[in-house]
């Protein structure tokens, strides 16, 4: 019976001094049963160590990813310095590297996509969180919106290439622009569809968490539904909605394939939003396999490093806000 006691106490990871004493007494006897329990304790320790090792491995993995990016972009950081980030010319043939066109392209596509998608994702959040939280139709809408995130980005790109590009082309010629079709505007449209679910699902859960006594208080003062939403619900969840927008932004910044397929891939600074351009992710996707010199590939990796750092910071801020909001 004693051996069983030992195991139970050790198993709980208890720091009780009793553990050591009982373990010692059982270690003194060498019956068969004790040997068995020794093996079990040993297996148990091994199991704990393996679990611990997995936790450490995750930290090592992320640190390794960051170190790899940093180490590989050192040649370009050394040779090009900080001016790399606002150099406006990207001409690998003449060994001139300036990342500004890509930074600009990434910022424009992402923010344009956010502006287009925010009304839709907030509408979904308010509809599902406040107007109709239960029922089969809201359920269907919720699941369908979540499916938007499930469709692979390469399929969005292919669809954009086949369907959206001709539409944008005729739209461009009707407003007197060069009818190119591919470009920043097209990729923003595709991106705006792709990022709707992130802000929508977070916003929905935030809106559902608004305490009902606040809303009832406003109703009892004679407020209409919309007035309750506008002056009670939205102010209450504004930081949660902001976190959702940040998560969407993180997605939009790093999105690669769909953008690569419809943005046109030119490394000059776009004059307006209908011109073709390039984002950081799309230039990496297009050129890393062709980069034949150390400095060329290293300049691309540095873009990857910037992308990594920016998305990490954005996601961390978003997570912090969510944690703070959900804790209250």
């Amino acid at each position: 019976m004693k051996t069983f006691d030992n195991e139970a106490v050790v198993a709980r990871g208890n720091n009780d001094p009793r553990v050591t004493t009982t373990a010692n007494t059982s270690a003194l006897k060498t019956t068969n049963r004790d040997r068995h329990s020794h093996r079990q304790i040993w297996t148990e320790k091994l199991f704990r160590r393996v679990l611990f090792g997995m936790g450490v491995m995750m930290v090592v993995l992320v640190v390794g990813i960051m170190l790899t990016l940093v180490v590989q972009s050192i040649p370009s950081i050394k040779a090009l310095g900080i001016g790399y980030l606002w150099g406006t010319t990207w001409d690998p043939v003449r060994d001139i590297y300036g990342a500004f066109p890509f930074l600009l392209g990434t910022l424009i596509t992402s923010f344009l996509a956010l502006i287009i998608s925010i009304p839709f994702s907030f509408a979904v959040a308010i509809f599902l969180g406040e107007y109709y939280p239960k029922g089969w139709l809201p359920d269907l809408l919720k699941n369908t919106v979540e499916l938007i995130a499930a469709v692979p980005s390469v399929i969005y790109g292919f669809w954009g290439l086949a369907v959206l590009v001709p539409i944008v082309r005729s739209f461009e010629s009707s407003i007197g622009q060069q009818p190119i079709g591919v470009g920043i505007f097209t990729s923003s449209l595709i991106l705006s569809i792709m990022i709707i679910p992130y802000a929508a699902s977070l916003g929905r859960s935030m809106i559902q968490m608004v305490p009902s006594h606040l809303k009832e208080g406003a109703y009892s003062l004679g407020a209409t539904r919309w007035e309750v939403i506008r002056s009670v619900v939205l102010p209450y969840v504004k930081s949660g909605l902001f976190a959702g927008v940040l998560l969407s932004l993180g997605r939009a910044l790093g999105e690669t394939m769909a953008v690569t397929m419809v943005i046109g891939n030119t490394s000059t600074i776009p004059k307006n939003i209908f011109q073709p351009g390039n984002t950081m992710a799309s230039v990496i996707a297009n050129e890393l396999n062709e980069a034949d010199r150390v400095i060329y590939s290293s300049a691309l990796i540095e873009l990857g490093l910037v992308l990594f750092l920016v998305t990490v910071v954005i996601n961390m801020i978003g997570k912090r806000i969510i944690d703070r909001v959900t804790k209250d």
Partner: protein
Amino acid sequence: MKASNSPVKFRIGKSGFFKGVIITLAFSCVIPLLFILAYIIKSGITKINWNFFVNVPKPVGEPGGGIANALLGSAMIILVAAIIAIPIGIMGGIFLSENRKSKVAYWARLCIDILQGVPSIVIGIVAYFWLVKPSAFWGFFGWKQGFSAISGSLALAIMMLPIVVRSTEETLKLLPDSLREAGFALGLPFHRVILKVVVPCGVSGILSGVMLSVARIAGETAPLLFTAFGNSYLSTNMGKPMQSLPLLIFNYATSPYNDWHDLAWGASCILLMFVLVLNIFTKIITRRWKVQL
């Protein structure tokens, strides 16, 4: 009377108006998705036939090409990625749920959060430097590096990891402590309690996390660009370049040939079906077993 009534009417009308606006906007989100689904299925379904599944792509102009190489390649790459990521992910999730307060768990959780937000192309770059670019480290073990399916699997496994870890952790956290305590009270050692009591109770949640992660990586292209690279022939060698569905779609969709576009439409249709079925299946599981992800 009228003076006091009309603002109320106005306010009620405004409330109704905004309700209409929100409902319209909310439901118009679905339109592009339905449009895309319908278009892909309409263009893809006619290209799918028996030859499509058993042949490799033919040269432009020859009829009867298929995507057997991409189907097999995708299946193998995903399988190997799952073999790498699932055990590590589940054990990592167990670690996080069993050690909620420890310092290592805090950092590990932070790293998982970071990993979840890392753009897939960055993972591709890193896998390229770890396993594709020739380095002295692997040369020491006598492995000649280059584009290989195994490096693609590694990249996808890194992408799977956070989803598996997260879903395992969240599922196990929801299980009542009394379950563990009952196991300990019977004298079971820690690993038995975890493997025979806790994990079986949370298996549906873990399973849905795994399926979700497979659905996510099945359509990932960016990490494969610099790793699995693509191959126009049938290949089963994990150490060599291998074709996969998303890579094939990307390469053929951006090519100028109609024959190749047809292959890409068929491949998109199959990929889309696979991903959607996995997602819907996951939804059903989470609903039936009331799992929260």
